[in-house]
């Protein structure tokens, strides 16, 4: 029993934080928020060199062969920096499902391309309905010769405008299948939708009779449900790690502010109203840390409670991070409500992730199924 990071894991965190402190300051984040593409290409290249892009992939694909605990560390730091860019979309939403269920050829092609920084991926998991799983997927996959024809509408597809391939679940006669779709293929339309979190880009993806070959199929035809569940658990974990980072940054900023801001002739941190709030925020951050790294370890180790740990993590951290980031604005008062002050970057990042990859209601129902089974 050892619920602590290894020396290598600590070094990894320090190195990620150092790199992001240098290249992803909030001034850089704000510049990217104004940029049509939404992220910085040089930092992407640096991330490839530092091994972050191939972090969870095996060495033959140019990866580092590390696990989900290490990936969660990187994602927590990205949340802490409000890093804008398709890292989560590429590595977690695109790469991990391919690693889990892709063919040898698909892995060879895409995982190597991700690790080297050549390819960006994403996944189109959401449709009109608010369901957090594959049950409500209405996009159709009809057999067409050796391949398939896909039709339907996907919502909230992150970073689709820069993706080289999109993982698209669609329903055929045999059930739900997962396809790799080229977003530039005939019949695909991408429409930008602007969410309040400008460090993320969302697109509506229209599929109007999009033709894909048999080699676009990830996993068995009609048998993608369990692969999608596994992918969603990892997405839930990854999103939670980012939310944890956003929450910790917001807490740090609040504590620093409470140590310098004076009112009534005293530092506001000396008032119990502020100190107790900060202590509660720390409790939520530490509880979230427990939830994130327990789930990361559990999924990586294939522990008995891995599925449920991911749901516990997402439902707990989503609410905790929203609370902490919101209370940070409260501690700061008026300045925290201004666009110029950085707190809203983290508040919005946490909020946008809270509702994705299964919101709390979705995951609490999964937990209830587990405990009443």
């Amino acid at each position, binding site marked *: 029993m050892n619920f602590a990071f290894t020396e290598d894991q600590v070094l990894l965190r320090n190195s990620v934080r150092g790199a992001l402190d240098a290249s992803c300051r909030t001034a850089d984040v704000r510049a990217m928020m104004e940029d049509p593409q939404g992220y910085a290409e040089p930092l992407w290249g640096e991330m490839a060199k530092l091994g972050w892009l191939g972090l969870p992939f095996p060495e033959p694909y140019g990866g580092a062969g590390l696990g989900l605990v290490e990936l969660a560390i990187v994602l927590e730091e990205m949340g802490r920096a409000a890093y804008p860019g398709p890292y989560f979309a590429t590595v977690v939403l695109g790469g991990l499902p391919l690693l889990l269920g892709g063919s040898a050829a698909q892995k060879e092609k895409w995982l190597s391309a991700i690790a080297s920084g050549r390819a960006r991926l994403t996944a189109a998991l959401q449709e009109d309905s608010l369901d957090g799983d594959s049950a409500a997927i209405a996009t159709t996959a009809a057999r067409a010769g050796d391949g398939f024809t896909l039709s339907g509408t996907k919502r909230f597809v992150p970073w689709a405008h820069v993706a080289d391939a999109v993982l698209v679940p669609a329903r055929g006669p045999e059930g739900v299948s997962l396809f790799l779709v080229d977003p530039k293929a005939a019949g695909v339309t991408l429409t930008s939708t602007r969410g309040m979190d400008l460090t993320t880009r969302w697109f509506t993806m229209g599929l109007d009779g999009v033709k894909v070959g048999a080699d676009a199929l990830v996993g068995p035809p009609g048998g993608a449900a369990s692969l999608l569940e596994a992918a969603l658990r990892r997405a839930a974990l990854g999103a939670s790690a980012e939310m944890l980072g956003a929450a910790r940054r917001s807490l740090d900023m609040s504590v620093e502010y409470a140590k310098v801001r004076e009112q009534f002739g005293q530092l506001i*941190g000396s008032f119990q109203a502020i100190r107790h709030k900060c202590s509660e925020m720390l409790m939520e951050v530490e509880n979230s840390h427990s939830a994130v790294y327990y789930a990361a370890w559990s999924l990586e180790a294939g522990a008995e409670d891995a599925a449920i740990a991911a749901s516990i993590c997402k439902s707990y951290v989503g609410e905790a991070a929203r609370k902490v980031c919101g209370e940070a604005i409260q501690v700061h008062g008026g300045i925290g409500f201004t666009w110029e002050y950085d707190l809203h970057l983290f508040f919005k990042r946490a909020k946008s992730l809270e509702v994705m990859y299964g919101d709390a209601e979705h995951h609490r129902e999964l*937990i209830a199924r587990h405990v009443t089974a």
Partner: protein
Amino acid sequence: MDLTYTPEDLAFRKQVRAWLEGNLPRTPLRTLDERKAWHRKLYEAGYLGMGWPKEYGGGGARPMEQAIVADEMAQVNAPAPTNGLGLGIVGPTVVVHGNEWQKKRYLQKILTAEEMWCQLYSEPNSGSDLASLRTRAEDKGDHFLVNGQKIWTSGGKVADWGLLLARTDPAVAKHKGISCFLLYLHQPGVDVRPLKQITGSSEFCEVFMTNARVEKENLIGKLGEGWGIANLTLGYERGGRSLARITSYASQYHRLVAAARKLKRNGRPLVDSPVVRQKLGRIWAELEVERYNALRVLTQLERGDHPGAGGSLTKLSYSEFEKRFNELAQEILGPYGQLTDGAPPELGLEIDTAVGEQGTWAYAFLWSRAGTIYSGSSEIQKNVIGERILGLPKEARADRAGAAR
């Protein structure tokens, strides 16, 4: 990071489980003698004082082994050892701060429950502000003379001895004039009166001391060191039993799910209601997070680190959780949750029917109000977290300077 148990830990767990299967009392323990007998049985099996030094009767075991024993006991809802404060607070205090004579004189008898202990800290006017305590201990040459009143003394009724904080120097600042003593309770100057709590039971007492006597040999540490010693023992109270506590919550949770299957609303079991399912899902997540926290604490203890102010975070989190959990249980059970003589047995709703009133949801609900008050209220924990972990400035206080009185 590796959250699995080693083969040795698993083997030890099996061994403890087998012992409990063979030795767990078949009927509830009703008298003090029965409780002491169970305590001695646990000690003889090597399951008490496991972390204390071997030369004083302890087991020299690792924190993980201690956690496993407590956890297995919680799994089968085993009665707790009867000398809880002796084991949890007095013993560790004597181990760290006692002299050789005190260790030899007192430790073994705590382990065997030959001498029962209580803790004499809080006073009617010194709760959260413990350092303002007024009980006096005057140096009379060959002994100390003690006058004052203590309150919230758990187990005072059955205790033979008390770990006492008293003021020895009223002329210095309040934290500096306190000393720590071992007080024999069976003497004319000591009057122990049970205090009836909101549960209707009397785990706590008031203790009145009128010219009570403490021998010189029973001063722990040096004069004026009592405050530092007390903070350490409060730390023990905050750090220990972390995993077993969560296991007890989990077994109560499973009882609650069972109750939600039996109780109906609109002709359907509560457990089929999406509203109830959301609440059950949410509280299980919170419970599991407390378990993860306990594993983090255990990791620290295994490395030999004292959780320190981090213990305040853990305590704040689980004690507030316990209130929320019991509030949910009451919400689900409705009026059945309020029955102090137990729900109709044919409904099978209670936590533990074998132990009487203490196994009812009503008792658990009322008792959950204590956890955020004792051993430093949630508000005090937040002060500690704010000052000692976050490094926030201390508040302006009226009592920082000057003598105690």
